């Protein structure tokens, strides 16, 4: 048994001639929060979809609990315990909290052919789960549209955990939220990790990522610029790597060089 719960080794993905991902490697232990940082177009969405089983990697391997895994569909990823919470959360705002919580996996009761959706059981589980996060669900049959952005995010995460996620992949969970709401979500993510889940937190907001992350992987133009432990890297360094700071440094040098040539 290796120390890692899940390993993504040298993952590459091509779309025709376009290299969307090249040799991206990530390893996560139980209870670890790895932040995946990258600017727009860095390949974050492609990587998420590869982790979630939507895309098949063209190169590389996924090892989960020491077994090599091949996903044929998002369902496979869910079944082994990789729960992905997309940016759109997969919540229907006109449907109730309960109906959303169990969407696609409704508990049933009754005889075959006359099976009914066990709404009482579903209601009590949904209310209990939301209560554990400290979200005041006054009535689990209320529409999700009445909840705040942070509450919705927590609902989606809580749903993924309830349905057996061991690895949580979170796509920009704080991007649309205010400071207060974002900190509520981040707190919940830390709590989830402390219960033994591995969390991959995808974001472009270093200020949200740095306080909660144990390690940081920076993605730039489809390539990993390396994984860093928190003790080895500062917030400023991460920020400059993400924003292509090194490229800008190079540009500065080049411009100076041009100046020098012209002045001569």
């Amino acid at each position, binding site marked *: 048994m290796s120390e890692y719960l899940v390993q993504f080794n040298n993952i590459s993905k091509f779309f025709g001639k376009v290299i969307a991902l090249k040799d991206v490697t990530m390893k996560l232990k139980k209870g670890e929060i790895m932040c995946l940082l990258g600017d727009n177009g860095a390949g974050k969405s492609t990587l998420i979809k590869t982790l979630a089983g939507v895309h098949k990697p063209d190169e590389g391997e996924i090892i989960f609990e020491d077994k090599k895994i091949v996903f044929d569909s998002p369902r496979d990823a869910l079944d082994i315990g990789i729960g992905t919470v997309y940016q759109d959360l*997969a919540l229907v705002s006109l449907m109730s909290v309960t109906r959303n919580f169990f969407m696609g996996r409704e508990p049933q009761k009754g005889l075959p052919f006359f099976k009914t*959706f066990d709404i009482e059981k579903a209601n009590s589980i949904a209310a209990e789960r939301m209560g554990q996060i400290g979200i005041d669900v006054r009535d689990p049959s209320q529409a999700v*549209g009445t909840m705040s952005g942070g509450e919705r995010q927590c609902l989606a995460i809580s749903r993924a955990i309830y349905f057996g996620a061991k690895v949580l992949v979170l796509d920009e969970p704080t991007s649309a939220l205010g400071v207060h709401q974002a900190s509520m979500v981040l707190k919940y993510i830390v709590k989830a990790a402390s219960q033994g889940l591995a969390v991959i937190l995808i974001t472009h907001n270093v200020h949200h990522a740095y306080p909660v992350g144990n390690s940081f992987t920076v993605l730039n133009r489809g390539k990993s610029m390396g994984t860093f432990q928190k003790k080895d890297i500062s917030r400023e360094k991460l920020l400059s790597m993400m924003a292509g700071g090194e490229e800008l440094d190079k540009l500065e040098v080049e411009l100076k060089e041009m100046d020098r040539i012209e002045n001569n």
Partner: protein
Amino acid sequence: MSVKSESIQSKKDSGQDERLKKISPLRVLLNRPELGALGGSVLVFIFFGIVAGDTGMFSAYGTLNFLDVSANLGIIAIAAAMLMIGGEFDLSIGSMIGFAGICIAIPAIYWGWPLWTSIIFAFAMAVLIGYFNGIMVVKTGLPSFIVTLAMLFILRGATLAITRLITGRTQVPGLRVLIEDDPIAWLFATDTFQWLFTWLGSMKLIALRTDGTPLATGIPPSVIWFIALTLFATWILMKTRYGNWIFASGGDKVGATNVGVPVGRVKISLFIGTAVASTIFACIQVLDAGSADTMRGTLKELEAIAAAVVGGCLLTGGYGSAIGAALGAIIFGTVSMGIFYTDVDTDWFKVFLGAMMLIAVVFNNYIRKKVTETK
């Protein structure tokens, strides 16, 4: 202070979640999509009760008359509503009615099939056409509006062309004699509770013909189908896993797919549902009239959608109810028949239909905002 904590304590003791705020029954009702249609139907009945209360509209015969019209529309409106909740439209309902009609009539009259085989044949065709509509929408990602609009023309044209090719006419009469002793046809052609009406007639409680038989002979098959389908659809939507999938597929296709809802299968099954409901409509109509006509069902798709919308279905999907659609159909059926009992020229019916729909959409839109945006 002490009073407050006491009340919380007492709620805890009674096993109730203290965070669960008591919700008034009015608030629960306001959250239901069929509220508008319920109010509308009450208003319609009050209106006709005042205007036409003494004209025989609400006699046994008159009541069954407008219930029959409502029920026929309701059968297709409920299927249309379920499809709308699932996020799609079916504009081929009306053409499917005409097509199903000749699918029953031509084999039975011209090819000598027993009536029951041609009825099964019509349903089989409906499943095929519904499946085709569904698979086209799901696989191509085209709007169902376009796909089923094409099907509207294809089916109507095929109905006309095939009928004229085989029969040389556009009508196929002569079905009535085949109904007797048929093992299936009675499902669509029998008035039920006849004993009740005979008894009521013998007690002189309802109007009689000159020969002493009651004017209203029994509950028409359309009403039985209508009630059964309303109950069935409501059960599916509210009480089953498949019902939750319908709401999810219409509410957010991508989200539903991401959590494992088989959105494609749900939508295809709903398209089959509208085609099958159109065929039930056609069976009842063809067996009642004793003939099939190539123009049967024209514009019925729009009436079905109108009834579903009045019943609280959102055009964007994910919200609505079968009971709402049923009430919408009752409103339209009642007004279309009731208008004969008033001094109003029947030409105004369509004006009413349009106005009613507009009011319903505005009202439902407002309610939906209330439901989802209040914290």
